[in-house]
């Protein structure tokens, strides 16, 4: 398959993730949609690495995976903290930073 097909799939997945971040109210689902966007970027990186025959794209994709894992741990820690405080699981209601 031509590389353009992979890039099209990547663009579609990124757009779906962006829709999810905009539309869904639950912070847990927003984190999942962020994962979708990061994975779309990963797919584009690996496709470009295949296109040029270079290896830097794959290395960068692995680094993106590490950063996504860090984001997940911190985000899930925040969600557990929100639940412990018995606040509502809704990003519209959690719009103030002070405790």
């Amino acid at each position, binding site marked *: 398959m031509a590389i353009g097909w992979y*890039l099209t799939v990547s663009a579609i997945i990124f757009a779906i993730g962006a829709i999810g971040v905009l539309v869904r*109210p639950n912070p847990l689902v927003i984190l999942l949609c962020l994962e979708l966007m990061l994975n779309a970027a990963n797919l584009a990186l690996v496709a470009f690495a*295949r296109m040029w025959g270079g290896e830097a794209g794959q290395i960068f994709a692995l680094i993106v995976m590490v950063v996504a894992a860090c984001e997940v741990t911190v985000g899930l820690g925040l969600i*557990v903290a929100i639940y412990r405080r*018995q606040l*509502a699981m*809704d990003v*519209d209601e959690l719009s103030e930073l002070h405790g």
Partner: protein
Amino acid sequence: MSAVLFFIAAIGAIAGAIAVVMLRNPFYNVLALVCHLISLAALFLLLRAEFVAAAQVVVYAGAVMVLYVFVVAYVGGADEPLHRHGAALKVLGPLFGAALAVELCIAMLGTALKGISSKGAPYIFGFGTPKHIGTLFLTTYLFPFEVASLLLMVAAMGAVVLARRRRGLDAAGGEEAAIRIHRPAYTGTMHETTGIEGGGGTVSQPEYENQREPIGSQTAPQRGDGHTEGGW
């Protein structure tokens, strides 16, 4: 053959992504994301990124998703409204997403890059294998590798600090009340053995039922049913 595999994997990935956004139960969202990640790993294999595909399945679909499942089970995966309260984003969000998809496709496919319509560079044997990637990580890309490990350690410590039970937020003796559940007589904890505070088994029932988290309990009345969260 590769075209058939590509379309199967791409349809799986896009269907998984749509299911992540559309399903109402967070537990099903996580399972849909697992399907999406595995389909994406198949796409990585088609792009000859073997190590990235393996890491995707093992680390992402394995470890990270297990973390998600644990948190969904802890928080409670109840069905919930699909949209936010203000209805403007309900219409504008998908419109914005469609515009973004079209724009990204135009930007990437409309470039003058010649390689985009080709099948990629000629394949060199060993490209993308664990040996290749590992050698690169320990020679050329050593600095990003070390920075990534440092970042992982900082994130792990940050998660522990964020999710721990804060002492100042509890009522006085809140943690002891969490320890003092029903216990047969003549059994105790190490805490009592050292003589700091005793008599855990003889505490009366209403004493610890009245204790609940003091902060924010009136903002979420559906959860304030009197149960206290146990500490770790």
